[in-house]
């Protein structure tokens, strides 16, 4: 059976060009970038070139990029790093950090951890589309606020946040602005200067690069405490011998993303809208997130009366790889905090399904999904006492 991968928000295949760029750095150019001999120089050059490529994709400068082991580490480094520089503010009223209810766990759990240490955190509500309430943001700011952390685009429902507006508000109030752009990078153009972004987290494996590499953009003049101490790599901000093959791959992935971003966005939007229109033909199906302010590759639905894991496994039996942000998904049992924040009740949140498309997906694949999905939904609904109850109500 042909397998169709539509879970690019989870991870992406590594591009062949990326693999080829990485290969020499395993067994030929294997030097440590800190060594002064020629092996070290090879590695150091690769490191600098890659840093430049990552910086270019977000319109930053080379010296503003710190390599990490992934998006989660970048988020931890940004938020803890700034918080630890502001420990003297713990005794003040706060809020010290303003974030949103729909952040990725890498941000939410980091904030909750800091809360235990005494920092006061404000979690902003969002509207029914998942857009952060700007009025509430402005109202929440106090003289004690030192960090705003709002994601660029949501990983579950794909909603793109008003980053430029938030950046402007942060700048006016002299507050550091961090954004988790792990899902947005490569799908929507990002300019850290135009959006007044001070800190930005990105990850390689979401943009056809290898896993285990990420970066944190740290704007000029932004000071933060390191969370990993050691030999002083990455300007002392992130000790640990640099993962050169991974970083080279990440650099190449960024270079490819930059050349393709417009083309990819146009192509993916077209596929996405075809999928959305097709799926919404199903009775009692709904789109989660914003109709237009959403990632080009994200289509997130909910279906009344059925449960997401059963849907995902049934699709998998037909060769289609999708995801659910609902209960029983992966290893969590609670329904999605994002769907709760946009006002979907837990009963309906369980019936959610996320398709996240990628470069290699085709129109034919979308047609196949639109063909197969209705019968799967119908079959699961036939088994469901909830659907039964609903049908009885209407008949």
């Amino acid at each position: 059976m042909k397998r169709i991968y539509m879970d690019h928000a989870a991870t992406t295949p590594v591009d062949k060009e990326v693999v080829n760029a990485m290969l020499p750095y395993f067994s030929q150019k294997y030097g440590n970038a800190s060594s002064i001999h020629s092996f070290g120089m090879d590695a150091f050059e690769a490191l600098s070139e890659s840093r430049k490529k990552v910086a270019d994709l977000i319109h930053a400068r080379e010296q503003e990029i710190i390599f990490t082991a992934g998006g989660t580490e970048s988020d931890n480094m940004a938020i803890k790093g700034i918080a630890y520089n502001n420990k003297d503010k713990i005794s003040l009223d706060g809020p010290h950090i303003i974030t949103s209810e729909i952040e990725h766990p890498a941000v939410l759990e980091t904030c909750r951890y800091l809360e235990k240490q005494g920092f006061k955190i404000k979690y902003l509500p969002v509207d029914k589309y998942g857009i952060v309430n700007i009025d509430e943001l402005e109202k929440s700011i106090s003289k004690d606020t030192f960090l705003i952390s709002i994601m660029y685009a949501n990983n579950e429902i794909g909603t793109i946040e008003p980053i430029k507006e938030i950046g402007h508000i942060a700048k006016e109030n002299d507050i550091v602005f961090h954004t988790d752009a792990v899902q947005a990078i490569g799908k929507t153009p990002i300019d850290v200067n135009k959006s007044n972004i001070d800190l930005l987290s990105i990850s390689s494996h979401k943009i056809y690069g290898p896993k285990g590499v990420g970066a944190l953009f740290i704007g000029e003049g932004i000071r933060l405490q390191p969370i990993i101490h050691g030999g002083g790599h990455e300007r002392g901000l992130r000790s640990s011998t640099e993962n050169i093959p991974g970083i080279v791959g990440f650099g190449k992935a960024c270079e490819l993303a930059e050349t393709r971003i417009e083309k990819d966005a146009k192509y993916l939007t077209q596929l996405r809208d075809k999928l959305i229109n097709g799926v919404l033909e199903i009775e009692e199906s709904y789109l989660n997130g914003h109709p237009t302010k959403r990632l080009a590759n994200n289509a997130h639905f909910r279906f009344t009366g059925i449960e997401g894991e059963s849907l995902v496994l049934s699709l998998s039996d037909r060769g289609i790889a999708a995801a659910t942000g609902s209960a029983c998904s992966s290893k969590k049992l609670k329904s999605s905090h994002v769907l709760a924040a946009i006002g979907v009740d837990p009963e309906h949140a369980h019936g959610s399904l996320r398709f996240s498309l990628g470069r290699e997906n085709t129109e034919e694949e979308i047609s196949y999904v639109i063909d197969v999905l209705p019968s799967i939904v119908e079959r699961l609904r036939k088994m469901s006492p909830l659907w039964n109850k609903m049908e009885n109500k209407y008949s």
Partner: protein
Amino acid sequence: MSGMYSKKVMEHFRNPRNMGKIKDADGVGTVGNPVCGDVMTIYIKIKDNKISDIKFQTFGCAAALATSSMITEIAKGKTLEEALEITRNDVADELDGLPPIKMHCSNLAADALHEAIKDYYKKRGKK
């Protein structure tokens, strides 16, 4: 994700036994909560103190569907006393085990069966 399930769970998930409703059921038991993501209804027909027919309807994950399907197989033909002795663990064991995280919230089939039997006793008592 299916990697966390036994072959038997996946087999029952793909080909559930005795799925559907019994319109003139002698006992009906519903357990679970849509908020938690699992709701099960078991329908039974009783003849000579034995479960002569049994069907289920379930809203839930693969584990919930498989345990529902499995309990209908285990319970069919059993006396009510025997059926009341079927435990959650029996169902999980027959499915070659369930992931630990699914043992609590998705393994409700035995409870639903017991509720259906109670419902039968209640209805019979009223007659």
